């Protein structure tokens, strides 16, 4: 009885940390987290799907390097609040608006990293593969992309982590995942909600980063073998 009163007391007292909040709003928190995850995942995946051809284009036709790199950098300087607002007349209040904005931001980091990875592939390797009769597509898929993978994954990790953080700004149009709860919590001065959603957001970024790091290790077993060799 007293325990229960103390437990619900933290909601009434508006404490920063409140177990009762976690229990009573777990559904709301889960929904917001799911929205946050899928907006982030969709943005990064679409970003990757756009960045890869752009990086290949720049490499094949160096005269496109200036315009493509310049434009993606330019996009990065546009404030997120402004970006979402400028896209508003096109998409209306929708998740597509937030995803589009986040895709545009991720391009700067992804294009640069993929390009750097591809350019770091040694010419001898390329020559050797060509000599073995590899066509351009097979060369790209079986030699160049695997070798560019560490740089690509590094870019992907940066893009993902910053996209998780930036998704919160989508609260402006009501599609910000955990940002919605933060926004709502500020309006109603609900401390437990703001702190819990903020902490979840940071945890989400950390988990995403670790998962991508794990994926990178699995995809590039040779890098591990080499570092083990160097270590031993």
């Amino acid at each position: 009885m007293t325990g229960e009163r103390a437990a619900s007391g933290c909601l009434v007292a508006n404490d920063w940390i409140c177990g009762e909040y976690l229990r009573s709003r777990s559904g709301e928190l889960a929904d917001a987290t799911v929205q946050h995850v899928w907006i982030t995942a969709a943005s990064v995946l679409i970003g990757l799907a756009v960045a890869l051809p752009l990086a290949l284009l720049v490499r094949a036709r160096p005269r496109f390097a200036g315009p493509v790199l310049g434009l993606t950098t330019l996009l990065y300087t546009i404030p997120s609040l402004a970006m979402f607002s400028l896209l508003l007349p096109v998409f209306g209040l929708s998740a597509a608006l937030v995803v589009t904005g986040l895709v545009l931001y991720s391009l700067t980091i992804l294009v640069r990293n993929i390009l750097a990875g591809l350019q770091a592939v040694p010419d001898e390797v390329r020559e050797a593969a060509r000599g073995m009769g590899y066509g351009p597509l097979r060369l790209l898929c079986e030699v160049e992309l695997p070798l560019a993978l560490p740089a690509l994954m590094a870019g992907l990790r940066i893009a993902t982590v910053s996209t998780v953080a930036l998704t919160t700004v989508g609260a402006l149009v009501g599609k910000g995942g955990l940002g919605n709860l933060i926004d709502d919590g500020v309006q109603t001065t609900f401390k437990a909600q703001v702190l819990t959603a903020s902490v979840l957001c940071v945890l989400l970024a950390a988990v995403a980063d670790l998962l991508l790091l794990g994926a990178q290790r699995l995809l590039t077993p040779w890098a591990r073998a080499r570092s083990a060799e160097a270590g031993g």
Partner: protein
Amino acid sequence: MGGVPADVWTWLTTASNWSGPSGAWHRLAEHVYVSGVSLAVACAIALPVALWLGHIGRGGALAVNISNAGRAIPVFAVLALFMLTPLRSAGYLPTVIALVLFAIPPLLTNAYTGMREVDRSVVEAARGMGMSGGQVFARVELPLAYPLLMTGIRSAAVQVVATATIASMVGQGGLGRIITAGFNTYDTPQVVAGALLAALLALLVEAVLIAADRLFSPLRRTAVRRSAAS
């Protein structure tokens, strides 16, 4: 839809939208002030630490980790947390603290990397010529680290100016207020006008810093002096 650009133009050219405490001039001044103070404080904290760590050659993991962790922290969440503490009545302080935290990682990493990428053999040669630690730092390492140092300051500055708009989401000042105010009254031309002003300011800052970078580059100056002397 076709009327939006015209309506935006009308909004931007209406004098009453620019005057008063919620007018564009005042918001612009708030924005520049908050961004400028934040960047200056962040530089004052991050640069000495990064340059010193770079000079003694330690703390690389620290610099990289702080930079990675910094990206994961949502500025909006930090601001929101501050607004629920007594800081909310401390004027621009919540925004400034959030932006300083946001600007430190890129400054720290770039300055540190710049110092570490200075060719070791050049540093050795300078020491061999009898330069003291301070002389090596001031005459060799710093000028050679300058390009990357400036890149860090530039990207931090542009990101601070861009991110300062988020302050409006928790009721703090700056150009973002024009956007959110327009949002709340379903005034699309005002939203787009505010977004344009914020984007233009960010681009202007980028352009000014690129120009300043070229103007003050130590290597450029010596190159010019050398070519003038010969």
